[in-house]
């Protein structure tokens, strides 16, 4: 009888150590508990870039679908997304708040290059995984970062090659935003054009906030190009198309994937968008792809009725797919290192984006796009399969 309490105490101590250790592996990983994995995102839901907030709302729908299917190895995903109004100062404050508050295992997407750059070092210091929306062209890499958006120079080169080789264009103009985004496109486009012993008929910059693009449109008219590649934001593209139409500039318009929300572009340009040839990083929102259909059903179920099923929604899902896949492959024993290792092993993963391959040496996962054409009524037709530079 004398030794019984001692045995009980001993057993309790051993159990405490064992259970404590078991609970500890979850509690020690930031943003992971026994029942949930917290994933964060920033996106503008108000402010100048509010339409891009749909990316984060797409991710939200995807996680709701995953949770409804039972979560990942018994854990539900808790999505902590906040509105940064496309303001880097607010991105920084918001990221700090959720990393140091509830804790976050990883960030998905994160709209805005400047916003991403504002928190880049912070994420490195805190060892948080980031499946980044800004591409590796704009943000310096780190062992915690994975890039999905094809680099702008590569995407531009693909478009130029298509315009020259498939469309037979001989006199191409380049209309670009005078910042890193526009200059990234210009760089790749120039390189590709040089391979064909060609030069741009004219290179025309604009500022993102310009509301009067008459000088730019007149310069285009003077150059008489048979194709114009645009590397601008949606607003500049809309104004340019209207201004050029008024000046009777007749040419083939070519656009990057950042302008791939065809129904929207068609509506705000009063149908002028029809005939635009553009690149896509994700399957078309109206395509018959089984995954797209599955996500559309989730959208119908979980998104508010006022929302519009679009390329941006799909993109939000596409950015989250590799992380969810890696978490599934890791199993229940989730750690940052294991998920990074699993992502690095990902070869030719195919969700709704192009084929994704990561390695410790090359974190630019997606390098391919396909070409599509905007049709009447905001519809699109896929013209090619997935193409790499």
């Amino acid at each position: 009888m004398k030794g019984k309490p001692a045995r009980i105490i001993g057993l309790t101590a051993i159990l405490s150590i064992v259970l404590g250790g078991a609970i500890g592996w979850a509690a020690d990983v930031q943003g992971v508990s026994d029942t949930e994995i917290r994933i964060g995102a920033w996106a503008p839901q108000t402010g100048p870039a509010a339409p891009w907030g749909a990316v984060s709302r797409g991710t939200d729908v995807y996680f709701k679908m995953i949770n409804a299917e039972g979560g990942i190895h018994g854990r539900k995903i808790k999505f902590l997304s906040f509105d940064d109004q496309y303001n880097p100062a607010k991105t920084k404050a918001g990221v700090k708040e959720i990393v140091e508050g509830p804790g976050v295992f990883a960030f998905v997407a994160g709209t805005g290059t400047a916003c991403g750059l504002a928190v880049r070092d912070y994420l490195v210091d805190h060892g948080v995984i980031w499946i980044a929306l800004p591409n590796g062209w704009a943000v310096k890499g780190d062992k915690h970062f994975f890039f999905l958006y094809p680099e702008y120079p590569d995407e531009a080169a693909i478009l130029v090659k298509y315009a020259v080789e498939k469309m037979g264009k001989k006199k191409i103009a380049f209309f670009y935003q005078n910042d890193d985004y526009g200059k990234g496109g210009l760089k790749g486009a120039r390189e590709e054009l040089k391979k064909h012993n060609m030069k741009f008929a004219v290179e025309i910059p604009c500022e993102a906030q310009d509301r009067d693009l008459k000088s730019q449109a007149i310069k285009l008219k003077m150059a008489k190009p048979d194709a114009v590649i645009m590397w601008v934001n949606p607003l500049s593209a809309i104004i340019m198309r209207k201004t050029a139409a008024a000046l009777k500039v007749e040419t083939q318009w070519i656009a990057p994937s950042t302008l791939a929300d065809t129904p929207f572009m068609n509506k705000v340009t009063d149908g002028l968008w029809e005939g635009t040839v553009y690149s896509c990083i994700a399957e078309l929102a109206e395509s018959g792809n089984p995954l797209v259909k599955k996500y559309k059903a989730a959208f119908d179920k979980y998104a508010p009725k006022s929302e519009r099923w679009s390329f941006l929604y799909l993109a939000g899902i596409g950015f989250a797919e590799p992380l969810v896949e890696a978490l599934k492959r890791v199993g229940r024993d989730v750690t940052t290192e294991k998920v990074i290792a699993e992502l690095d092993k990902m070869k030719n993963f195919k969700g709704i984006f192009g084929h994704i391959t990561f390695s410790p040496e090359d974190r630019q996962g997606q390098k391919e796009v396909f070409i599509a054409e905007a049709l009447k009524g905001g519809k699109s037709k896929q013209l090619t399969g997935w193409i790499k530079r």
Partner: protein
Amino acid sequence: MFLQVVIGGIAVGSAYALMALAMVIIYKTSEVLNFAQGDMAMLSAYVTFMMLSGYGLPFPVAFPLTMLFAIILGMSCEFLFLRRAKEPTVLGMIIMTLSLEMIIFGLVSWKWGSDQRTLPFPISSYDAYTVGDLIISKLELVTFVTALLMMLMLFLFFRYTKVGIAVKATQLNKDAARLMGIRTNRILMGTWGLASVVGATAALLIAPASTLDPYMMWDPLLKGFSSAVLGGMTSLPGAAIGGYIVGIVENLFGTYVSIEFKSVVAFALIVIILCIKPSGLLARHYVKKV
């Protein structure tokens, strides 16, 4: 192409001129720079959008209703905000207009969201007349004619109507005007209403060429302000001429010199003009006794 560039400059200059006139009308009576002018105009454009798209009203009905709304909006801004300030300084009033601008911006973003929209304007922005090598869009022509009509109406109003003369009297000497029986507070409120109508007209002409969104008037407001400073903050003809100068110089510079610096040329122009003539091109330089 030179003429084409000039025509483009005149068209965009017409919109700048209207914004400049709206700012000068208020500045002349109260010495307040109304930085809410752009967003007041933007709100009026959204009200037009709501009437056209939401309620399906035809444009000939929606337009006068919008103008009525613009008058009420302008007068309310003065009556409910500016007049409430106790012993206001000019700087304090300017800060109040900035607050007003943020309130209107927030209100529009909340009600209609930040998505770019199309204002269903009766004239297409890309239907155009061709005269020889020149192409003039119908919208540019309408903008130019509307701006001229607006200027003519303002001229007739200030020159020949009793209220217009009362406004001028208030501008010249508020205390003396009050002693002569002019209700200067009402005149002040009326000028805000009038400026709001001029601004709303500019917004209705700008939106079809670009998009309807909460940011649509930021650039035109800056350019309108530059035009007003260039022409002289107290001169209505100066503000109008300033608008045309900014529009034409901007387009010529962008086409023939440097497109990268097109956006800043208006501000460079102001610096040059103000160094030569500090009161602006057409305003009289006056010294105030203190």
